[in-house]
């Protein structure tokens, strides 16, 4: 994170992706940096500096480094540099560990502890050879350690940084082509998708999250837990996901804006309760951070394979809303909008994100993280004042034209609130008779028609009259966006239809754009092309050309651009 922050400070767009295996320590970790002046939305195939922290990484990721780029190695690393240099890439060996230990020992650290400062060393060398002002590094280190871990370690790191930085400037700077021209800029935020969602939820007045830990969703909760004092949010870890969603339903029934967050396996355990929320018309927000499936699958990899599941889970039929943010801004917006939609339509609202978006850190303009945009709409929620005026008995599930029944929470003398998972009369008592069953079913389903007008149209970027239309949803926004720019640069007329709110499906706009599209390419991080299937189910529009990736890795812009050109439209 440190280096990325430094780059951002230097006014450069940064997108950093930390790749790690399903293990706690060890495993191969690396840090890749891609630098550019325009807003970067995705990892690129072109890495300029690779800082591997073990040998395995070099072999695995060398291919991504561009000619003229560099790999920074700890001097003693056992590896045949020719494998690197033969590709026209510099193999830069610096005694990273040695520097780290040396500086560490000076201030009386154990060698073993000092060792980890080699990361600081490696990043500082990179900074040095790319002419990044030393102040950037210094500033970041002070923040990272100075406050948190006590100034002693901070100084040790600074010493390491200084030494390594100078080495970078002196030894390798001269013949390294890629330079980071720092440019003045206003401060920007460096944040990942899960924090953006949690932040959005907090801004919307969420005061309850009950959950059970599951990667990659846990950080949503951990963020709220870390800020619970500031925000007055109650965080409850439960015995399992069944309890997690049920407690959220209970809190919501009492009138609190409540949510839960999980990943596929946990969502599978929540299925029955989602139906309960729908039947009792309880507003509920559920975050599903997708990962490679099925089952435990690829727990630390990314995928977009829960869309159909989320649309059809639980027995019977009921309205639900599904948001699929694809950028930090959209994550933030989904975070607060979900609560408004949940209370307006008194139904479950899903926020679908994925491993890639949950963990990928991006630098954005704080203004795009727009607090003024946040509105709070509790829908038809009866206030004490409203209830004071109530004369006839309160009917929780009153039949209305809109399908929305004025909602009271338990506690007011004028309104006994009764609800059940059984089909019910307007007053909530269980019903068997056909007419009321039909009326209540129709009432609930009417809410979906209304919600369709509330759902935001997919984003269309690029010319209306494009030759190629790229279709995607969620976290593929970044790489598809990049690909579109690449293809545009090559003179192709390409546009991009991005679904950030997918259900109820915005049918009108979908037909408007896709019926006239010349050639459509459906791009999804899954095997079956789930969005394409849903669009065909609802509109009949078929998208035979698909670019589907299900190896647990996110797309890159270059990859999409290349495949679209090559016309490789089958499974990748």
């Amino acid at each position, binding site marked *: 994170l440190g280096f990325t922050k430094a780059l951002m400070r230097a006014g450069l767009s940064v997108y950093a992706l930390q790749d790690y295996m399903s293990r706690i320590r060890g495993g191969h970790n690396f840090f890749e940096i891609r630098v550019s002046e325009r807003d970067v939305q995705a990892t690129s195939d072109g890495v300029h500096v690779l800082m591997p922290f073990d040998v395995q990484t070099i072999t695995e990721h060398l291919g991504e480094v561009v000619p003229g780029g560099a790999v920074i190695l700890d001097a003693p690393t056992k590896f045949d540099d020719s494998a690197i240099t033969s590709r026209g890439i510099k193999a830069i060996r610096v005694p990273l560990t040695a520097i780290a230990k040396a500086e560490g020992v000076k201030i009386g650290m154990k060698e073993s502890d000092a060792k980890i400062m080699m990361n600081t060393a490696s990043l500082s060398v990179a900074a040095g050879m790319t002419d990044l002002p030393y102040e950037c590094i210094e500033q970041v280190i002070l923040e990272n350690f100075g406050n948190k871990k006590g100034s002693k370690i901070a100084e040790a790191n600074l010493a390491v940084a200084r030494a390594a930085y100078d080495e970078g400037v002196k030894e390798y700077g001269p013949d390294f082509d890629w330079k980071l021209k720092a440019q003045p800029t206003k*401060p*920007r*935020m*460096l*944040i990942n998708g899960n*924090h953006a969602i949690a*932040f959005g939820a*907090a*801004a*919307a*007045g969420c*005061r*309850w999250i*009950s959950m059970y830990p599951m990667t990659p969703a846990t950080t949503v909760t951990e963020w709220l837990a870390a800020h*619970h*004092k*500031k*925000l*007055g949010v*109650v965080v409850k870890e*439960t*015995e399992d996901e*069944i*309890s997690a969603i*049920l*407690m*959220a*339903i*209970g*809190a*919501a*029934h*009492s*009138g*609190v804006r*409540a949510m839960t967050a999980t990943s596929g396996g946990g969502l599978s355990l929540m299925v*029955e*309760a989602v139906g*309960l929320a729908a039947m*009792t018309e309880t507003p509920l927000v559920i975050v599903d951070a997708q990962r490679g499936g099925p089952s435990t699958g690829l727990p630390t990899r990314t995928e977009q394979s829960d869309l159909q599941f989320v649309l059809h889970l639980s027995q019977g039929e009921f309205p639900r809303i599904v948001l699929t943010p694809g950028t930090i801004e959209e994550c933030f917006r989904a975070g607060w909008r979900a609560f408004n939609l949940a209370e307006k339509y008194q139904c479950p609202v899903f926020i679908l994100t994925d491993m890639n978006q949950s963990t990928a850190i991006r630098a954005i303009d704080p203004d795009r*993280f727009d*607090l003024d945009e946040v509105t*709070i709409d*509790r829908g038809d929620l009866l206030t004490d004042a409203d209830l004071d005026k109530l004369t006839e008995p309160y009917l929780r599930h009153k039949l209305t034209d809109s399908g929305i029944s004025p909602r009271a*929470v*338990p*506690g*007011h*003398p*004028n*309104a*006994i*609130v*009764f*609800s*059940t*998972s059984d089909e019910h009369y307007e007053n*909530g*008592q*269980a019903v068997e008779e056909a007419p009321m069953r039909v009326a209540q079913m129709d009432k609930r389903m009417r809410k979906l028609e209304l919600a369709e007008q509330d759902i935001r149209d997919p984003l269309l970027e690029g010319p209306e009259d494009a030759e190629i239309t790229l279709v995607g949803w969620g976290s593929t926004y970044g790489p598809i966006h990049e690909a579109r720019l690449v293809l545009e640069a090559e003179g192709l007329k390409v546009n991009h239809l991005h679904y950030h709110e997918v259900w109820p499906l915005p049918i009108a706009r979908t037909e408007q754009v896709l019926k006239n599209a010349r050639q459509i390419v459906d791009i999804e991080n899954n095997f079956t092309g789930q969005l394409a299937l849903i669009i065909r189910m609802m509109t009949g529009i078929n998208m035979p050309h698909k670019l589907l990736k299900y190896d647990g890795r996110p797309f890159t812009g270059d990859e999409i651009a290349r495949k679209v050109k090559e016309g490789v439209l089958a499974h990748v």
Partner: protein
Amino acid sequence: MSELKLFNSEEQPTWCPACGDFGILASMKQACAQLDLLPHQVLLVSGIGCGSKLPYYMKSNGYDSLHGRALPVAMGAKMGNHDMKVVVISGDGDGYGIGGNHFMHVMRRNPDLTHIVENNQVYGLTKGQYSPTSAMGFLSSTSPDGSIEEMANPLAMAVTGGATFVARGFAGDPKGLTQLIMLGMQHKGYSLIDILQPCVTYNKINTYDWYKERIYKLADQDEGYDATDRHAAWLKAWEWDEKIPVGVLYQIDRPTYEDQVPELKEGPLFRQPLQRDRAVLEAIKAEYY
């Protein structure tokens, strides 16, 4: 006390004639009235089962959830509004079988809930399969040669598992049951009230007579009994075949979950404003600069 009839509902119970649940319903209403509560101050959260239909037949806030899932819903509702008297209604299959994990973990947390289990030692609504509290050898459609599972002892589990109030009642003794429910509702923390409830249709073993022959009131006999002694309570919980104790087996003081959540100090969570202080949010944004 408030008026009993305030809690009467228009709904006609669909329970079999003479079902033990009638007695429990009567005692529930009595207890609420005698505690001077009003219908809008009470929330009954139930699961699914014959016993779990109780909220339909009593006028008060009610939420009939899913089979086995009443406890977590109730805890969430209580956390959302801790001014509300929240009572959980469940059956033995509901509360101890499919709902067992919530039972085990919610009691450790000690939220201020009263958990009533209508324990008829059988699955009633689904027409008579054996339940976790059915005796070994119990004959049913899914145990044609008799159950071969050691019968669960929910009271001993509750005493061991962290409940702060553990009692047993009998549906055939409305007066005593009313008292017990009142004590449970007055207790600050998680209170379990396991109620012996004859299922006249599917449990021909544990009948009114079967229970009457065995039960005795803790108060009557064990003068020396100390309900604050976890060890004594555990031993007492094992009395069954010859004599079955009813009354409060165990009760201690421990802070409730709500007491320990700082956010609830400013009053019920649902009353707290949604709008967050702009300065606070800006400060958090700054963390990311």
